[in-house]
C-alpha cells in the first residue's frame, strides 16, 4: 500500500475522542468539534451576524488552520496555489454553510451526533450520502472547476496570517469581539486546551488528508475505502467516549442542539454533500487546505463565514424548533443553484 490506512484511522480515533471529551471540558453537547458551528461562532464573534447565542472566537478553528499551516511548512507541503473558479468557490462555500446550519452541524458533527444516539443524524447522513452521490455523477459527466496553478508563496500566508492576527487580538483584547453569555456560544473548553486540540487535529488531518465528504465520495466513485476507515474511526472513538461519559441517548426527540424536521435534516446535509464534492472537500478539509496555502480553499472558508452571516442575519438557520420557512427556501434555492452551477460548468467545459 502506498498510503497506509493506519494514519487516517489514528487521526479519526483522535478526532472522535476529542469530539466526545471536549464536551466534558466545556464545549456544547454533541458539539465537541463542529467545523461549521465553530466558523459560525467566529463569524458571530467578529459581528458578521448578531445571533447572541452563537458568538465566540473558537480556538479550535484557529488550531485547525495553524496546525495544518505549521506542519505543511515543516514537511515542505506548504505550496500556495489557487485561481480555480474563485467566485464559484466562495459562493458554494456560502451555500455549504447554509446547508450545514439548516441541519445544525457539519458532517463531522453529524458523526458525533450519530455517536451520541441522535437518530436525526441518520436522516442527515442519508441526505449527505445522496448529495455526494449526485456530486459524483457530475464529476463523471465532466464537472471540473479547473486547475489551480502554483502561486507566488505570498498568497498562501493571507489566511494563516489572518487567523494568527485574529487569535492575537482575541487573547490580548477580547473586548473587541462579541461573546455569548448564554447558549452554545457560551459553552467553551478552556482556551489552551481548545487551541491544543485544534492544532493536533489540524496537523493530523493535514498529514492524513482526512475528509468526511471524500470518505463517501471515494467509496462511491472509485471504490476506495481508505478515507472511510477514518470516518468509521471517528464514529467508534466518539461512541466509546460518549458511553464512558454517559452522553448517549438513542432517539429522535430532545437531542441537544438538533431538530426533528426529517426533510430539512435530509436536504440540509444534502446541500452540504453536493457542495463538498463540487469543492473537493468537506468543511474541515477546506480549513486544512487553507492552512497549506490553498487560496481556493481559503475562499471557500471566507464564503463559509459569509454564509454564516447571511444564515443568521436572515433567520435561515435551524433551531431546536425546526427549520423556519426562510431557511427552507434557502436550502431549496441552494440546491437549485448548486445544480445550475454544476450543469453550467459541465456544459461550458465541453464547448
Amino acid at each position, binding site marked *: 500500500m502506498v498510503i497506509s490506512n493506519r494514519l487516517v484511522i489514528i487521526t479519526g480515533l483522535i478526532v472522535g475522542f476529542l469530539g466526545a471529551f471536549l464536551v466534558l471540558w466545556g464545549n456544547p453537547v454533541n458539539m465537541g468539534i463542529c467545523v461549521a458551528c465553530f466558523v459560525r461562532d467566529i463569524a458571530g464573534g467578529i459581528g458578521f451576524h448578531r445571533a447572541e447565542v452563537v458568538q465566540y472566537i473558537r480556538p479550535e478553528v484557529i488550531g485547525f488552520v495553524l496546525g495544518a499551516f505549521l506542519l505543511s511548512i515543516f514537511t515542505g507541503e506548504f505550496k500556495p496555489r489557487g485561481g480555480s473558479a474563485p467566485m464559484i468557490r466562495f459562493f458554494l462555500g456560502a451555500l455549504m454553510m447554509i446547508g450545514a446550519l439548516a441541519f445544525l452541524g457539519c458532517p463531522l458533527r453529524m458523526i458525533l451526533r450519530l455517536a451520541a444516539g441522535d437518530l436525526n443524524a441518520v436522516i442527515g447522513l442519508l441526505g449527505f450520502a445522496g448529495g455526494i452521490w449526485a456530486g459524483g455523477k457530475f464529476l463523471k459527466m465532466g464537472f471540473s472547476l479547473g486547475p489551480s496553478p502554483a502561486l507566488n508563496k505570498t498568497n498562501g500566508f493571507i489566511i494563516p496570517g489572518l487567523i494568527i492576527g485574529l487569535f492575537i487580538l482575541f487573547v490580548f483584547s477580547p473586548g473587541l469581539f462579541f461573546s455569548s453569555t448564554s447558549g452554545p456560544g457560551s459553552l467553551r473548553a478552556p482556551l489552551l486546551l481548545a487551541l491544543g486540540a485544534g492544532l493536533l487535529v489540524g496537523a493530523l488531518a493535514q498529514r492524513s*488528508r482526512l475528509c468526511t465528504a471524500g470518505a463517501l465520495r471515494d467509496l462511491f466513485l*472509485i471504490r476506495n475505502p481508505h478515507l472511510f476507515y477514518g470516518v468509521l474511526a471517528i464514529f467508534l472513538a466518539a461512541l466509546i467516549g460518549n458511553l464512558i461519559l454517559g452522553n448517549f441517548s438513542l432517539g429522535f426527540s430532545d437531542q441537544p442542539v438538533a431538530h426533528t424536521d426529517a426533510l430539512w435534516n435530509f436536504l440540509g446535509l444534502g446541500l452540504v454533500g453536493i457542495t463538498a464534492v463540487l469543492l473537493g472537500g468537506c468543511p474541515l478539509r477546506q480549513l486544512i487546505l487553507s492552512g497549506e496555502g490553498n487560496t481556493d480553499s481559503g475562499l471557500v472558508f471566507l464564503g463559509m463565514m459569509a454564509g454564516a452571516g447571511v444564515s443568521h442575519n436572515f433567520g435561515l438557520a435551524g433551531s431546536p424548533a425546526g427549520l423556519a420557512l426562510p431557511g427552507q427556501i434557502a436550502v431549496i434555492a441552494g440546491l437549485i443553484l448548486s445544480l445550475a452551477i454544476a450543469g453550467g460548468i459541465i456544459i461550458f467545459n465541453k464547448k
Partner: protein
Amino acid sequence: MSENIIDARGLSCPEPVFKARQAMLNKTNSQVKILVDSEVAKDNILNQAEIDNFSSSMEKQGEDYLITLQRR
C-alpha cells in the same frame, strides 16, 4: 497504445485519480500516463492503482510527477 499524457496538474481531489482511473477503465489502451504536481494526487493515484490491480511506475520531472499505469 497511445502516448497521450493526461495533464492533471493543478487539479484538486479527486480529479487526478478519477481521470486516471476512467482512462484505464474506459479505453482500450493498456497504458495511461498522467502528469500531476502534488504529493496528494501522486499518492492517491499510486494507491488506487494497487486497489485496481494496475502496475504503476513514477518518474519525477522537476516539480511534477509522471505516473504510468499499466494493466497487469
